[in-house]
């Protein structure tokens, strides 16, 4: 630092040119800062505003749309904290509350796959921790370019190893997620990480700096130059078409899961001892974000001595310290009399901690550097940020896309053709066995994992005595959303909701990660607005509120955006996880693995209505490279009835298996249930087998009803108003579609298992 840019200096040098554009601010935004402060900002203030007003931190393009989630929210008695907190908090009964959230780490994961994905896990875990909860599990929704593309061979193994490295070392079970491939994600992979945490009602923490005189403590890792500009320069701009991406590598943070593990245990001990008045995790925009948000949400003022921030690089000055995104850091507000106890708990866990300032009642966020003021701002001006009503326009190409009806595509002519199509779908990278990925994740740690991938939803036990548990699923479908973002988003919501219900849980709440191209493109903004409207309407119809989420814009290279890809996470409560329902067909005696034996084979009932719906389907895309028409029509009322039936049937112990129908339709679902349970089945389809096998109509689930329970289940199904057909029975060692084909389990496995190992080694 040659010369320190202090507040005094800023007042006396009004016309000094400042690099606002390089920091991602527009001329208008810069002038708004000058107006707010009544002078030019100091270098430190400019750094602070640039990260706080970045798209990533301020939601400046999305805010006007996201309001709908609260405005249209269905009445819910289950919400203890909603949108606006680090994560929403849901009451699951028996005194327990659950908090969950999904967040993107897309740009970092493309530039530096291993560390980008690893720190994505670390960041979302700290969000959950900051609410007062013990992090309990993680999930990952991953999307990459074509599986065979050389760059995918660089990005995918790195992303998976990063998630494995961080999550396993942190001791959180990875219980599910997604893996898909599409050319639209080449150069813009999607790495969305979800974390869920559990607490008692009274454990809820607040992110606010209240009480003048209370101390502000920064604890965890030291602050270094890593991740400077991560939120503004990296996450809030599209990638260039050329080779500029390597230059963004220093913007990616480096993860230390061991320190995060200590930080988790340390925080939970601090919370339990009642030593924390307010707490905030440090993620995007680091110290800048934590101080402004804590101050803005609290008494309103804070004094911070930046030279007290423990550094790992002594050359850092105020702007770098404010912008650094060094990982594994938290900021707490602590009563002066409890600081000693606070520091003792940190010392026990070998976590570094430093008092860097105190809460004031001045209404100003003031930061000094060795006594010289370098920041003096009203905190809300940085925390609130600008609001944009971006222009939006339905793209002209949308009509042509809708007109390209897949009904005209040539269909398999006979049983042999249907058989070949099913095997081809099972072998395609997006539908193939994902063990190559999921075997790298620890799904057992903490000992409460009841269901994990490849099951429809992850299921965790919360209380060992009562069996109370939670189910989680994430879903998204870029092809559906490309064809119709409103409908596509509702389909993603409906699928996640159905996946949670398939385990026997009752869906309660929704989180979302909205991955889109540039908001400066009116076509993208239209997709975004439609998706948000679809989700808000869908949540209202299903009776599940959105509790929080994350927006990731600028997922595009040059002018080419990704498919609009909202990823929706649904949380459900399971009254007794011992009554969980898995997707695997039970052995021929009707008993699921480990369960009590029943007599005779389980019959297979297909729930829901099957229509010829192939727009955006896996069959059309994989067999014909076709993307066109309308996606399937969601029927949210039918989804609600189906979910209620599944929960009731699970509670009554009527089901031996349940598997949601989605990509690849009934054919893929039956094959997956056969492979999972290592048991075959024989089905007879009522009419046109092609439509029954490969249509992707929503609101459907294949269930195996325990022998002897058929009549009871039939009455329950009718009482819930869910259409259904008994299509066959479990048993044998082949998947048999009467009159069409038979495929031995070994042949199914031979198609399903080798795809990813062959691609990634």
């Amino acid at each position, binding site marked *: 630092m040659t010369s320190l840019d202090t507040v005094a200096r800023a007042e006396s040098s009004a016309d000094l040119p400042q690099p606002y554009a390089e920091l991602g601010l527009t001329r208008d935004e810069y002038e708004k800062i000058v107006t707010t402060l009544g002078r030019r900002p100091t270098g430190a203030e400019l750094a602070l505003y640039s990260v706080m007003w970045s798209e990533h931190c301020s939601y400046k393009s999305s805010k006007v749309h996201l309001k709908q989630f609260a405005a249209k929210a269905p009445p819910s008695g289950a919400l203890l904290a909603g949108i606006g907190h680090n994560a929403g908090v849901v009451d699951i009964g028996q005194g327990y509350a659950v908090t969950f959230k999904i967040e993107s780490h897309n740009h970092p994961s493309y530039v530096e796959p291993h560390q980008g994905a690893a720190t994505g896990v670390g960041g979302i875990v700290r969000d959950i921790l900051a609410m007062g909860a013990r992090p309990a599990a993680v999930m990952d929704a991953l999307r990459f370019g074509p599986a065979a593309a050389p760059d995918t061979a660089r990005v995918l193994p790195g992303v998976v*190893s990063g998630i*494995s*490295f961080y999550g*396993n*070392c*942190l*001791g959180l079970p990875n219980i599910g997620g997604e893996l898909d491939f599409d050319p639209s994600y080449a150069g813009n992979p999607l790495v969305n990480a979800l974390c869920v945490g559990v607490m008692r009602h009274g454990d809820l923490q607040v992110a606010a700096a209240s009480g003048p005189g209370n101390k502000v403590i920064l604890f965890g890792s030291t602050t270094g130059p890593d991740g400077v500009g991560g939120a503004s320069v990296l996450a809030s701009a599209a990638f260039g078409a050329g080779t500029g991406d390597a230059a963004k590598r220093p913007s990616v943070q480096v993860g*230390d*899961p*061991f*320190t995060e*593990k*200590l930080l988790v245990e340390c925080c939970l001990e601090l919370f339990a001892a009642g030593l924390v008045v307010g707490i905030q995790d440090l993620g995007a925009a680091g110290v800048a974000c934590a101080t402004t948000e804590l101050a803005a949400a609290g008494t309103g003022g804070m004094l911070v001595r930046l030279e007290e921030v423990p550094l790992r690089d002594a050359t850092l000055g105020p702007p770098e310290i404010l912008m650094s995104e060094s990982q594994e850091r938290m900021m707490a507000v602590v009563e002066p009399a409890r600081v000693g106890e606070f520091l003792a708990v940190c010392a026990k*866990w*070998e976590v570094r901690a430093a008092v860097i300032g105190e809460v004031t009642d001045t209404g100003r966020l003031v930061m000094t550097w060795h006594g010289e003021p370098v920041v003096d701002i009203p905190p809300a001006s940085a925390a609130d940020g600008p609001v944009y009503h971006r222009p939006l326009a339905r793209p002209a190409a949308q009509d042509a896309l809708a007109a390209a009806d897949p009904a005209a595509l040539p269909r398999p002519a006979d049983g042999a053709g249907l058989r070949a199509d099913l095997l081809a779908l099972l072998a395609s990278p997006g539908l193939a066995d994902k063990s190559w990925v*999921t*075997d*790298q*994740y*620890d*799904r*057992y*740690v*903490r*000992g*409460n*994992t*009841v269901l994990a991938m490849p099951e429809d939803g992850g299921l965790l*036990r919360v209380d*060992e005595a009562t069996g109370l548990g939670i189910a989680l699923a994430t879903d998204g479908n870029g092809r559906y959303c490309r064809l119709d973002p409103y409908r596509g988003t509702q389909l993603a919501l409906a699928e996640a909701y159905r996946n949670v219900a398939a385990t026997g849980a009752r869906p309660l709440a929704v989180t979302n990660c909205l991955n889109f191209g540039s908001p400066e493109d009116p076509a993208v903004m239209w997709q975004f607005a439609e998706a948000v409207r679809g989700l808000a309407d869908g949540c209202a119809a299903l009776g599940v509120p959105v509790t929080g989420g994350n927006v990731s814009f600028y997922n595009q290279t040059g002018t080419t955006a990704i498919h609009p890809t909202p990823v929706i996470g649904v949380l459900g409560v399971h009254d007794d*996880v*011992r009554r969980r329902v898995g997707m695997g067909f039970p052995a021929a005696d009707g008993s699921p*693995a*480990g369960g009590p034996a029943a007599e005779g084979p389980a019959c297979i009932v297909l729930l829901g209505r099957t229509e010829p719906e192939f727009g955006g389907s896996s069959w059309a895309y994989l067999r014909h490279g076709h993307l066109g028409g309308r996606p399937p029509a969601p029927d949210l009322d039918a989804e609600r009835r189906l979910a209620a039936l599944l929960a009731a049937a699970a509670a009554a112990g009527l089901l031996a298996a349940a598997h949601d129908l989605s990509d690849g339709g009934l054919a893929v679902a039956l094959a997956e249930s056969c492979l999972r349970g290592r048991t075959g089945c024989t089905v007879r389809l009522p009419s046109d087998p092609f439509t029954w096998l490969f249509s992707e109509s929503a609101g459907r689930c294949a269930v195996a009803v325990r022998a002897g329970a058929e009549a009871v289940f039939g009455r329950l199904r009718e009482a819930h108003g869910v259409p259904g057909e008994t299509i066959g029975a479990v048993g044998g060692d082949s998947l048999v579609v009467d009159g069409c084909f038979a495929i031995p389990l070994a042949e199914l496995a031979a198609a399903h298992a080798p795809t990813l190992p062959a691609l990634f080694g």
Partner: protein
Amino acid sequence: MRIGVITFPGSLDDRDAARAVRLAGGEPVALWHGDRDLRGVDAVILPGGFSYGDYLRCGAIARFAPVMSELVPAARAGLPVLGICNGFQILCEAHLLPGALTRNAGLRFVTRDLPLRVENTQTAWTRAYTAGEQIVVPLKSGEGAYAADPGTLAGLEASGQVVIRYAGDNPNGSAAAIAGVRNAAGNVVGLMPHPEHAVEPLTGPSADGLGFFTSVVSPGVLA
């Protein structure tokens, strides 16, 4: 029976080991890495995890923890000690067990439910099993390939110190498919698979792992 479970910084499966002890009818006792105190327990488990992040060789730092200065002489005097995964690595680093654990042959972390063969039941931790019994228990590790020099391996085989062997595919390139070994006296056992994650069918692939804990909790009944 009071069974201690040591928590090192970065231990992850400590609660799971304690749960397994409880399900086996024992009383779990939390032990802290920084205390030179075993609190009078009847046996000790070193749980899985990533002590000190395992950024150096796995277990290389944990072996110097203050609690180890109490544990090592107690183990040499006959205290039953079980090391699971990272605990096994620490026991090898502390020279309570022979050999070492190295990077998996595939260089990737592996989580898999695996068939294992109980080769030796003359230990404090496997006497509830019958020799040759096959069990299914999860493995989850990145550095689980057991390695030792040929002389040591031959000695282990000759003296019956190979306790657990992978019965199907060798998942990580372990020498002679060795998944777990014991010391000469049989009171100290280490293995890479996680028996504490196979103690109830609801949350594991089986309850086959419970025998490790019942072996030490009720030795008289099950001997």
